[in-house]
């Protein structure tokens, strides 16, 4: 059935049930619209004048009070659940091993090795970096994949949505779902006023921020920080740039294509290099990746390049999410 016919039928139905567009001189209309034989069967009309059956009363009652009763029940139920869970957890916490005690079960041989041999085995001065990117690197790989999944989902849900021709055409009901209630504010880059103070501050601070981000990323294996934190700092530089100069400016060097390409290739490099390391490790093959001396920039084997890859992914993703939310596209 084509769209025109569907619309006609819908209008027709609305007109019949009285929900359609009103005519201007409605009060003057005395004649009732004819009751069409196929929309209201005669016995159904008669049944309206009968006393309501129990089922009908139940339905009416639910229509009237259902939502409020449901919400009261739901509220009380969830309060009870939360109180019970918190109580249980409080009792649990009081029975846990005491905080900060040296004899806790958590202080065992695992931590011993991480701390005693971590420096020599991974070459990283920062034990946490050594742990997350070498000992337990598979978790961290999964974590980057979570970020990637989130970015892809947000991109899928938001970016393609504004295009009209994306809606499926052959669906019967798609016309109903397209109600666009939201009146969006215009995108920020369309602002007319041009903010001199902000631009001045931005032109001074963006290089500093980028430098800071790079330092945090590159020193990830030496000092606290690393790919995730440094990437977040880099993304703030991008966001500031977008706010001061408009999204169009950022678009010139960073758009959806570059974003997808850079994060995919960074993640691919990450996956391949880590995959090589996993593979050689599990099969007891010498991997041949030098560890270097602790404390140098070029040390700790794969941790430095992995941190750089993670930094690229995080910077792109966080900026991308911001741009998607404020602009609808990267």
């Amino acid at each position: 059935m084509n769209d025109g016919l569907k619309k006609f039928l819908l209008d027709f139905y609305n007109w019949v049930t009285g929900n359609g567009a009103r005519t201007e001189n409605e009060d003057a209309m005395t004649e009732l619209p004819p009751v069409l034989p196929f929309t209201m069967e005669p016995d159904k009309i008669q049944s309206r004048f009968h006393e309501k059956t129990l089922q009908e009363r139940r339905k009416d009652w639910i229509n009237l009070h259902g939502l409020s009763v449901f919400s009261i029940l739901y509220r009380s139920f969830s309060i009870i659940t939360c109180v019970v869970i918190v109580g249980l957890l409080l009792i649990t916490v009081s029975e846990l091993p005491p905080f900060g005690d040296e004899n806790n079960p958590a202080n065992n041989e695992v931590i011993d090795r991480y701390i005693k041999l971590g420096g020599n085995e991974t070459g990283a001065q920062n034990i946490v970096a050594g742990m997350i990117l070498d000992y337990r690197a598979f978790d961290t790989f999964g974590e980057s994949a979570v970020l990637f999944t989130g970015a892809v989902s947000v991109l899928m849900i938001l970016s393609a949505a504004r295009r009209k021709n994306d809606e499926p055409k052959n669906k019967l009901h798609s016309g109903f779902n397209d109600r666009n209630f939201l009146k969006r504010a215009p995108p920020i880059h369309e602002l007319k006023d041009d903010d001199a103070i902000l631009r001045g501050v931005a032109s001074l601070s963006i290089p500093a921020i980028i430098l800071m981000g790079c330092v945090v990323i590159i020193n990830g294996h030496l000092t606290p920080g690393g790919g995730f934190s440094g990437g977040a700092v880099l993304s703030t530089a991008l966001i500031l740039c977008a706010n001061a100069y408009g999204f169009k400016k950022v678009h010139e060097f960073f758009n959806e294509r570059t974003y997808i390409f850079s994060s995919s290739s960074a993640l691919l490099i990450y996956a391949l290099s880590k995959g090589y390391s996993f593979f050689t490790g599990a099969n007891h093959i010498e991997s041949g990746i030098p560890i270097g001396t602790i404390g140098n920039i070029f040390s700790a084997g794969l941790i430095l390049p992995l941190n750089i890859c993670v930094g690229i992914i995080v910077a792109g993703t966080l900026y991308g999410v911001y741009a998607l939310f404020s602009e609808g596209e990267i």
Partner: protein
Amino acid sequence: MTVKTLAYNIPFISIFLMMIAAIITPVLPKRHRIPEKLSCICLFIVAVLSGYLIYALDTANGDIAFNFPVGHYPAPWGNELRAGLLEAVLAFCYSIAMLLSLTGNFQSTAEDIPERRRSFYCVLMNLLAASLLALTYANDIFTSYVFIEINTIAACSIVAVKNSASTIRAALRYLIMSLVGSGLVLISICLLYDLTGHLLMQPMHTKIIELVKNGKYIFPLTVSLALITAGLAIKSALYPFSFWLPDAHGSSTNASSAVLSGLVLKGHIFLIIKLFLRVFGLDVIEALRMDKVIFILGVTAMIMGSVHALKQLNIKRMIAWSSVAQVGYIFLGLGLNSVEGISAACLHIIVHACVKPMLFTSAGGLSAAADHLKSLHDLLGTFYINKWAGLGFVAGACSMMGIPGFAGFASKISLTMASFDSPLIIWSLAALALSSVLNALYYVPAMIAILTGTDEKIHGVHEKIIIPLSFKISIGMFIALNFYLGLRFVPLLRLIMRGVNIFG
């Protein structure tokens, strides 16, 4: 090393292959449906590899399972994967079912999802497959958590991909419920780490046994077990927590419904099994009385899921509620707390993972034949329009009812056999019987509805719809799998039992 080198590396390779496929999909060209083909090829490779792994483990001397250290460091320090017969069988089944549900819904995916989104959709499907495989093989509780999160986000977004109001709402509800679930899982993982000082499963197990023997920290252990089970139960739609499921599975596109209902729920259930067998051990579970709770919830789910399904007129929602009932069967098997019970539960996981995607795929085919209407009233006589879909639906319905010769019979009979050794025999037999009757009560009318048609439908006075070859192949494979599982389930059950015995 008793296994050959290739087999030894298979768990890692299969997870990694799906990951890399997901990573490179966004940069691939979108035309000619290259992303989807890539997914299918990768899934096929994973299936072949898993088949080889089953063969290698089956023919190796003795019952073996091996640990695969991910990285250079051995067990308590680095991450680990662990593969045995059970994991290999499940991985094989997941990849086959996912491959078939992707190929079977090739056309409906193209109709529902615009081209721009389809490449992202494939990324999410690949990530979903990778996370399922990782949940199957992971031997580390925190790795499992990370992959649960990947699974959650990917699952919610493949619900929302259709971009209609109802799917968005369903995805939101699904997201909120599964976030509650993963919050509980996370709290419980923190507690467990605090109590044992390990994140890997086997060292954790020894520590827990020690704690229980000494009578220390019993209450925190119980609470963390309860929380992690509750969290995973929410995610796997055990009955009282399953109200998000019909919306999410009923309104999304067919491929998503098939994968979500058939596989994603199973990933979390398998994690519960792993937790029970490997982390806590059956004795501890029995001592903490968790098995009874699981049993009662399972029985409730079996009955209430069917009762809800009886009320549905929308065919996809009906099948979705039937999933709730089938999840109940799995938890019933778990609640028997014996090797036989858990083997039967695993068999049911496999059976359901093969049958439910078939039901969703054929329901999609049938509703496409009825001009995309989904109410049973509109599906009258659609069997004669799309015979392949009709056959698939009939086979799936027969299987769900447990008619001998079909796949569902296999798991039902093995659940029955398993419950003979249990003290709960009367309850479990009664529940099985009642649930089978209820299943029949809603699947038979649906079958009758699609088989009774008006004359013009039977004699072909309707517009011909072209059934794509991929749909035929997929349904044919599904039906063949169905019969294979129904007729030759004994060797499979034996294989699973061997797997469960060496699982801990």
